[in-house]
Structures are given as C-alpha cells and as structure tokens.
C-alpha cells in the first residue's frame, strides 16, 4: 500500500505539471477550453492526492507505526501541494479567474517535484513528535503557508499582467482585494500554527518559546505580514506595493520552511536523533 501511495504521488506530480501547462495555455490563448481542462485536471489531481495521503496514513497503521502523514519534509511537501491546490480551487470557485491558476498551480507542482527527490519511506515517529499537537500544528501551518503561496501567486499575476499600469481598473481592484484576503487567511492560520506549536513546545521542551531559528523565522514571517496588514491603513500601499509585499512575505515563508532546515540548525531538525 505504501508503494501504491508513492506511485500515485509520482502520477499526481505530473498531473499538476499538466494542469500548470493548461492554465498557462488558458492565460496565453485566452481559451475557455484550456481553462475548463485545467480546472478538471487540477480537481482530479487534488482528489487523487487526497487518496494517496489517506493510503499512506493507512499503510503506516498496517506497519504498526501508525501516525498522521505529517511527520517529515517529504510528507509536509506532499501536504503543502495539497493545501495550495485546495486553497487555489476555492478561490477559483468564488472568482472564476482561471489566470490565477497559471501562477498558483505550478507551486503545487514544484512542491511535489521537490518531494520526489526525497526518501518516501514511512518511518516511525520520534518521541518528540508523538503528540496530538503534531496534526493541529502541521495542518494550521501548512494551510497558512498555502494562503501565503496563493497570495504570492496573485501578487505575481498582478505584476505580470500589468495591473500596476491601471490600478483603479475593476480587475486590478479585485486582484488587490484577493491578495489581501488570502494574506488574512494565511495570517490567521499562521498565528494558529505558531500558537499550537508553542503549546506543543511547552509540553515537549518545557518552554513555549525558545528563539529556536524555526520559531524565530515564523515570527519574522508573522511580523512581515503584520506590517503588510497595517500598510493597508497607510496611503499608497495598495496595488503594486501590495503585490510586491506579498512576494516578499512568501520569501520569508519559504525561508522559514526550507532555509531554516537547510542553512540553520535548531530544535526543529529531526534529521538527527535525540
């Protein structure tokens, strides 16, 4: 079952690639057919990805080391792709602006592609990870990250489609508002992620906050988005600056997620045993 789940994950990766290409075609050729095809393929990818994650969960229980599939970089990347696709599709359903897909869905593909370079085997949980807070922490954090990912995709789209030239146009205003809305979703979930993380840290390490690099970078990300939300109340920060800000914020998210593990050391490095 583990092998089946892994095979599905490979297939899903290329399905996201196909969806990305279709969304790009939709954007380039302004063709409805491509748009419908892109949405259909993305929905299919999300459905099958859900199945693969459930299979992996079941497989871990069959191996006698059952745990939610959110325990290492591989599993988090797979779940990150899931959250990006899910949040994007919700936005697509409410706005029908499929061009966003050309910017958002490639992020899901890249996350899956990165996962494929890693060891997919299911491993038992380290004692520090054996906590009910693991699930709450990972789900809130990654839904938050995905909110920020989609807002960055919207920011990129804002800049790439030249909205800055006419920031008062209806389309530019809708995009600007969507960037704000997705940042709000990401911000609330990131806050919840930091809170669940500190509750967990308090029971695992005996301190709710230890200025560990991962914690600090999540706070840096939080501060950057908090300032973005406050910039909304200052004149001249809508539109282009908002779009750029959403990209900078997502840069912080990526560093919190990958950079800290790769470049800095701390408590979150589960590569080495206790």
């Amino acid at each position, binding site marked *: 079952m583990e092998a089946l789940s892994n095979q599905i994950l490979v297939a899903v990766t290329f399905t996201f690639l196909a969806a990305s290409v279709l969304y790009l075609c939709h954007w380039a050729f302004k063709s409805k057919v491509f748009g419908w095809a892109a949405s259909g393929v993305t929905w299919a990818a999300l459905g099958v990805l859900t199945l693969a994650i459930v299979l992996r969960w079941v497989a871990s229980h069959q191996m006698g080391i059952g745990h939610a599939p959110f325990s290492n970089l591989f599993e988090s990347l797979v779940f990150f792709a899931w959250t990006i696709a899910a949040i994007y599709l919700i936005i697509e359903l409410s706005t029908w602006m499929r061009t966003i897909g050309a910017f958002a869905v490639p992020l899901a593909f890249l996350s899956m592609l990165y996962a494929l370079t890693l060891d997919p085997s299911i*491993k038992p949980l380290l004692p520090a990870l054996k*906590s009910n807070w693991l699930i709450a922490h990972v789900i809130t954090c990654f839904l938050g990250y995905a909110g920020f990912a989609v807002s960055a995709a919207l920011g990129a789209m804002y800049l790439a489609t030249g909205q800055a030239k006419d920031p008062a146009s209806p389309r530019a205003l809708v995009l600007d508002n969507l960037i704000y809305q997705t940042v*709000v979703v990401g911000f*609330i979930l990131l806050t919840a992620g930091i*809170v669940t993380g500190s*509750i*967990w840290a308090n029971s695992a*390490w005996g*301190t709710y906050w230890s200025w560990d690099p991962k914690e600090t970078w999540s706070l840096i990300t939080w*501060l950057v988005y908090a300032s973005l939300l406050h910039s909304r109340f200052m004149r001249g920060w809508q539109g282009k600056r908002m779009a750029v800000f959403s990209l900078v914020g997502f840069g912080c998210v990526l560093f919190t997620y990958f950079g800290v593990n790769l470049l800095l050391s701390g408590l979150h490095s589960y590569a080495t045993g206790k």
Partner: protein
Amino acid sequence: MSQDQPRKPISERIWDFFASVKLSFFLLLLLAVLSIAGTLIPQKEGAAAYVRAYGEAGWRFISAIGLNDLYHAPWFVLIMALLAANLVICSINRLSLTMRILGKDPAQEAGSMRKAKDSFTLTGEPASNLDKARLVLERLVGNSAQAKDGERTVLFAQRGGWSRFGVYLVHTSVLVIMAGALVGNFWGYSGFMNIPVGSSVDHIMLDNGQAKPLGFTLRLDKFNVAFYPNGMPSEYRSEVTFIDGGKEVQKSSLIVNDPAEYKGIDFYQSSYGNDLEAMEVELIRADGSKQPLTLKAREINQLPGGAKAAIQGWRERVQMGAMYDGPVARILYQEKGGEPQAYTAFNPGVKMPQSGPLKFEIVKVQTEAYSGLQVKYDPGVWFIWVGCTLMVIGFFIAFYFSHRKVWLRLSPTGQGRTKLEIAGATNKNRQSLARLISRLSHELGGGPKKAE
C-alpha cells in the same frame, strides 16, 4: 496636514508620533529585520565559539552590543516596549473615535443617507410600503430608526457595530502575551536535573549554573527506553516519586510530551545517559609489574604508597576505525613527591603511543544510568494562552465581521407608486455589504440581482 496650520505643541506631536500606524509598520519591520540577525549569529554560545567564528575583534563587537543574546539585549527589549507603547496610544486614540461612531444617534444617522446603490419602483403609496420595508430591514439588518425628509421617509438600520472592537482585542492580546513573557522572566525559572536511577535529588541546576533547592525531593525509580523494530527509540520513560516532608506524595510517569507537575513546577523528560561511577584499571610500570586500582569518579583517589589519581574525563565508547573500539579515559596520576601527569587509558592489549613512563589499562567501567529532566516554573504561561486565544478570536472579529449601515428611502413618484432607494456603508468587507443590499433589494421587490 496643510503646512499653513500652526505647529502643534510638542507633547501633542509626541502623542501623534506614538499613535501613528506608520510607527507600527516601521517597528514591526524593524523587529523582523533584527530578528533575522539573531538567527544568523549563533545565540548564547561560549566566548570561545564566537572568537573562533568571528575573531577577537568580532567577538568584542558582538558582546558589546549583545548580539550573542540578541532577543534579550536591552535595545531589542526597548523596541518591543516601543511597539507596546505604540499599541496602547494608537488604541486609545482610535477608541475615542470608535465610541463616537457607535454613540451616534440612529435617528440622526437616518437623516444623513449615503448615495443610493440601488433603486426601483414599487406599486402603492410610500405609506403602504413603509411597514413591509421596515419589517424586511429589521429582519435582515437590525432595529430601525426613521427620519422624514419632506414627503420622503428614510429608514436606517445597522449591525455589527461591536466588531469595531476586534482590533482592540487583538492589540490587547499582544500586550497580554508580552505581560506573560515578563512575568515568566521575573518570577519564573528554568533549569535541569540529572537523577541516577534509584537516587534522589532535591535541587536543580539553573540555566545560569547555580543550584536551586526545590523544597522537596525527586526519586527516579525506573528509567526505560523503548525501541521500534528498526532500532529507532520510540519512548523515553522516567518513573519518579515526589517526596515532600519525608512522605511519598506523588508518583508520576514522565515521557516526552507528557510532563509531570508538582507544586506548580513542571518536570519534562529531556535526556538520558550513563554517568561514570568508578573505573577498575591496571597500572603497568616500565618493568612490567602490574597493579590493579579502583578509581572513583569525581574525586581524588588516595592510593597505597602515597600516590594520587583522578579521572579527568572519559568516553564510554570511542571508535577509531579498525584500530580501536572501546572506552577511553584520561587519568591524572601523581607519584608520592612527584609531579602530576596525564595518561590516556584504553582497553588492554592496545598498541598506542605512551605519554609517560607508566601505562594504564581499563579493566572495567562502572556506570549508572541517569535521566535528565528539564525543570520549569513559569507563572506567566497562562497569560500566554489567554493572550493567544484572545488574539485568534480578535482576528476573526477584526477580519470577518464588519459594521454595516443600511438606509432605505421611500419617495412618492406621483402616480400612486413608490420609489425605493437603498444605500449602505461599511467599515470593511465591501462584498458582504453588496450581498446584504442585493438581498434587501430582492426581498423588497427589486427583482433578483446578481451579487457584485
């Protein structure tokens, strides 16, 4: 903002400075940027580590401005205090404005209708349509007020005014969290204790290296490590007994993620290891004579014949490729009247270069297992949880609820019909106002309308 205005007194300008959103924006970004420095420069290392990484001059600079403990450096704390001041003053400023908005007389507001967003004609005179309009308005929005404007009647209703307090809830939550951190800093402490299996310990070692008596005793009855089939550790478990006033008062099982509490102090499973108790060695002299010795750890051993020996350090297992795999100890030995000299001891039969006229061989290592517990007392932690809860609730209120006002104006058209106009205002979330207006319009007979 005009330059012709007379300058405000200095006190007011300072107040305005602290009340500005620009300051919040700047301080939040400043804290973010400074925090980055603390993740690039290792924190709370020993001086030697900094000298190695950054050189003497680099270390002098780092220690002078506190970069080695950046998040507790006075200037970092000062910036957080500025943010707190900014929060408080900005909130006070806005709060009076909010109270004024919420305190407005509805009857007066009814008289100041905004620009209509929708309008349509109904059959019947305004008087006959008024009751239905009021009913729908009160059902969808809230209590209504009425104003007359010549022949025209304006109905006004509002909802969600309370949501204007969401932002203050968020700001208060930040202050509560900061207060919790301060309380923990001033009245809390943290440290650790290593308890050998079967032993009792009545004090902890604080993070600053000082011993602190607990006022009661902890006995480690049992320590166990469980493993998965693949050899990875699955659980570290310490069975401990709390002894207070000579009586066993509580038995607890400590595992990672499941600490125990006694008298408000929390105990966490943190580490484990083996401590050296004693070492049986054989002293081999140049003439080949052998002398068995038992050296106790952590003390100077007085040996027969007036010699002294101590174990300076040891490793349970050292692997040197094919050459060696076993324990290693560093032994300080002093003949009677001689100078102390250090020797490295290995298992018997190992060919290693000798560092002196004597040779020590390790015959037996006596260790005892200990469990390392993290110990914490933090009376501020409940502030943190209350603050976090308030913050999340505050976000939902601040971002997803809005103060919406709606006006309905009924005017006679002259042919026994009524012109009905709908206007609205909101402090945020325009789509939700648009949805509300289109619902009103639909229910009042304006026909189905698509939401914007």
